[in-house]
């Protein structure tokens, strides 16, 4: 349904939509970061990642109920989520990599099943109602002339680049980071260099899962969530990772912002109810228009 009245390209709606889009994009990039590592770098199609983000959000929600600050809660959650990621990778690799290479069909199915099980466990423990967190610093809005930015969007949008920057620096500047980026292609070379590819992948999967709790904190600050909210993120996070060029973290920030802006424009000028389909449409168009490029990148 079109928005009521004439569609006005009034400047303040446009500016607000653009800024909201950039901030949303920043949060989406945080959501996609873990997937950029597992799918983009390790080539493990972890479709459970958005659900792990939701699990992270519920972790933050639980601590926030006891009065813990959500950002602090996310930092507390890094270690348990890292360990959860390590456990998931061990489960995955015990099953498939030992069988002589993971079969895409089987690993996709496994993560699909895991994601459902996590969702249901969340629903059974927290119920299906929407849950949110409230802190003093995300209540009101920042007003700058015609611009109105709610703090509940601004704070997470500033939190996200910090985490993304930290992970990016880790991956590009440290030896372990370099090994992680090389592990999918140069497994043999790493073994020769005395590094254990399995333990590098396990570590990378742990980091990827740890990012989910920070992304979850960002997500639950932006708006309320329920156990099945992850399905609406799947299109977004995969669009970001795939179109950015698998594993490119700066690229994923750019694509995430493009998606955020597109959604904000669709919400402002068309109807918010259309926005869940936007990322998916972008993904499909991208896949259809640049299949060779993606194919090359995925190798």
């Amino acid at each position, binding site marked *: *349904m079109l928005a009521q009245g004439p569609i006005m390209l009034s400047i303040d709606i446009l500016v607000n939509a653009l800024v909201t889009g950039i901030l949303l994009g920043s949060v989406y990039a945080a959501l996609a970061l873990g997937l950029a590592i597992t799918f983009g770098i390790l080539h493990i*199609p972890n*479709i459970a990642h958005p659900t792990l983000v939701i699990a992270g959000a519920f972790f933050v929600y639980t601590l926030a109920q006891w009065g813990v600050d959500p950002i602090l809660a996310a930092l507390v959650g890094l270690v348990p989520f890292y360990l959860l990621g390590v456990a998931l990778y061990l489960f995955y690799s015990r*099953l498939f990599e030992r069988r002589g290479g993971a*079969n*895409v*069909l*089987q690993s*996709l*199915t*496994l993560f*699909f*099943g*895991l994601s*459902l*099980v996590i969702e*249901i*466990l969340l*629903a*059974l423990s927290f119920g299906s109602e929407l849950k949110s967190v409230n802190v003093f610093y995300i209540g009101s809005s920042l007003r700058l002339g015609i611009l109105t930015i709610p703090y509940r969007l601004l704070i997470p949008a500033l939190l996200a680049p910090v985490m993304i920057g930290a992970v990016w620096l880790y991956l590009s500047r440290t030896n372990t980071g370099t090994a992680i980026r090389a592990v999918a292609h140069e497994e043999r070379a790493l073994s020769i260099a005395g590094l254990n590819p399995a333990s590098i992948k396990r570590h990378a999967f742990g980091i990827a899962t740890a990012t989910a709790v920070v992304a979850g904190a960002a997500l639950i600050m932006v708006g309320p969530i329920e156990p*099945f909210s992850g*399905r*609406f993120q*799947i*299109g977004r996070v*995969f669009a970001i990772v*795939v179109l950015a060029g698998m594993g490119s973290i700066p690229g994923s920030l750019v694509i995430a912002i493009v998606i955020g802006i597109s959604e904000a424009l669709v919400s402002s000028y068309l*109807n918010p*109810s*259309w926005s*869940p*389909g936007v*990322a*998916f*449409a972008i*993904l*499909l168009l991208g*896949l*259809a228009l640049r*299949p060779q490029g*993606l*194919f090359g990148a*995925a190798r």
Partner: protein
Amino acid sequence: MTKNSILFLVGIAIVLVLGFLMPWVLKNPFYFFVGYVVLQYVTIATGWNILGGYAGYINFGAAGFFGAGVYLSAFLFTTLGLPLPLCILAAAIFGAVLGLLMGYLTLRIQGVYFAIATLGLVVVLETIVHNIPALGGASGMAVYGPRQPFWSPGPSQFNFTVMLIIAAAAVTLARFVEISWIGRGLRAVRASEDAAECSGVPTLRLKLLACALSGAVLAAAGAPYPFYTSYMEPVTAFSLIIGLNAIAMPLIGGTRSWVGPVLGALLLASVQQIATVTISSELNILFVGLVLIAFVAFAPGGLAELFGRKQRRARS
């Protein structure tokens, strides 16, 4: 025609005749009400397996195809007054077109992208339905189905028979695909796409064909659903459990032949129907999810292969 094919067709004919006669013997309509759902899942699992099992391309969006069938059929019936068989046919054609479209957009690259694209399909179709008031939007709308004809004692029995015909057609189609050159080509694609292409198999065209056939069956499975429930709403038409069952049933039964999905659907759907009385739909999903993980992890060939192995061992 081979001896096996004749036996198969005779079997299908017997099942169909029983399906027409049973409603006059078994008086309680509840059995048919429950049987409908089991047959619906036989159809869904069979349709999913044409692409997922034979060609190895996983479709997470079965609920999208199913829901598309639900909405198209209800729309054609209520607004245009098309007869039921035409509604089902139209739903199947629509599902085939949807499958072709998804396939055309994503199949030229690796299978993993196809799978990811199908994950989003449900969200997109649900978004579209939410925004079309003529389809009832988010809250849904009541649908008054056709009256049962003279040869059926009641609406539940009639819906059951309609679903049985669709299921029988789906299984026959799947078996035809499986034993023909199409099936051999698809299995080659599943094993190695490059080697298949270099053996003369037109891999892209075969995959598109499989997408279309699979989509058609999945949408046809949804076509009678609005008349079965007399109500359609996005939540049930695009239900999570449909997408999950579509994958779990073939994987549990075995994906290599048409028997697997039928077996898996009969088993799992019956358990679910018996259990719905006692457990919540959430526990149902949890149960199916865990069973799915267990099979992927420990018995990727499904029940068909487990039985097969046991038989072979017994013989040798």
